[in-house]
């Protein structure tokens, strides 16, 4: 209940700050759901507010403080939505500010969600490795973290478990809950796997210190 009140207050503040028309938004939406770190009560000072609106239109709006995604009501019943990473996450961690979680029990991790995650990991790995020499150390650090989180998310999807908010992924990683080699194995990369192993292994062994300064990663700068 305490978290619900906080989330409502944050949503109301966002409507004002982002100059959104509350009346027309609430009239056109059958469901308004807050998800992510705010709904799970694990947000940090810089966390944004993730909101899913279900109604008549499809739209998205991303600002430093608000990540708003709008989907159409009929999409909620589609296998694509119910089997998606986001749909499954919202079903598990969402707080409904308007409407009822009528579709939430049908959500799951579909093979398509796994395929998409594998594609993203493979593509990002390929791009990061080929651009490594041009990237400033802060970006090397950022992409190492992004890849590690995406591998963790893939692990959840493969187990048909909803992906938790990012602060929970980071906490579990630091606590050693995840096995680095197994995560990399599950990505089933066709190419660049070796370099990915190195990147992620470095991120694992050096956390929370600076991955980019690790001499073992100089290979990518050559």
């Amino acid at each position, binding site marked *: 209940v305490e978290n619900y009140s906080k989330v409502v207050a944050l949503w109301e503040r966002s409507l004002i700050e982002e100059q959104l028309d509350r009346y027309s938004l609430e009239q056109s939406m059958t469901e308004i759901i807050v998800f992510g770190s705010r709904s799970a009560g694990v947000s940090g000072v810089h966390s944004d507010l993730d909101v899913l609106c279900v109604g008549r239109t499809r739209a*998205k*709006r*991303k*600002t*430093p403080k608000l*990540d708003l*995604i709008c989907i159409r009501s009929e999409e909620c019943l589609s296998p694509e939505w119910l089997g*998606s*990473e*986001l749909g499954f996450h919202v079903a598990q961690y969402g707080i409904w500010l308007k409407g009822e979680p009528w579709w939430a029990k049908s959500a799951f991790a579909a093979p398509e*969600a796994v395929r*998409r*995650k594998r*594609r*993203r990991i493979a*593509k*990002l790995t390929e*791009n*990061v490795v080929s*651009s490594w020499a*041009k*990237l*400033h150390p*802060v*970006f090397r*650090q*950022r*992409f190492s973290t992004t890849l590690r989180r995406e591998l963790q998310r893939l692990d959840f999807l493969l187990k048909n478990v909803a992906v938790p908010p990012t602060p929970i992924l980071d906490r579990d990683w630091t606590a050693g809950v995840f096995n680095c080699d197994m995560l990399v194995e599950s990505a089933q990369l066709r190419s660049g796997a070796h370099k990915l192993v190195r990147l992620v292994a470095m991120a694992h062994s050096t956390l929370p210190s600076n991955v980019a300064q690790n001499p073992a990663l100089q290979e990518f700068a050559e």
Partner: protein
Amino acid sequence: MAKRKRKLPKETIEAVVDGLREISDVFYFHEHESGTEGDSDDYFYEVSYTEPEDVEVAVAEFASELLNKKMITKKGSKAPSFSDVFEQIFGSDHDLTAKAQYFEGLVSEYEGYVSLEDMRAAKQVIDSMISTLSAEVKRGEDQSGKLF
């Protein structure tokens, strides 16, 4: 109240324009026929286009270049976002910063996917930023070398 105009070195603007051109070059949209041979009703056009990870890394290269040239700084210990770059150089109330924020929203992937419509719009935003800055460079060529 009128916006305060900043005076920026021409080299900074040129570095930003060059970087934006490299981001623009990452975008592609290839239309190709798809469908079953022999049945004309099944033919349709598909568009293969830039993947969000291509843009993600191109933007990181752009900001890295400016960081390495010390034209911008890190955001604490973190990497600056695309809009942070413009906020640092031009100010938070500048049109280019607003365009950069809009661009970030367009290319932010969800389920590893950005729609064709959003990707096309993102390319247009980058190209309009290049046009604005190129015009400023041209206008400033006859002046003291300080722009904006």
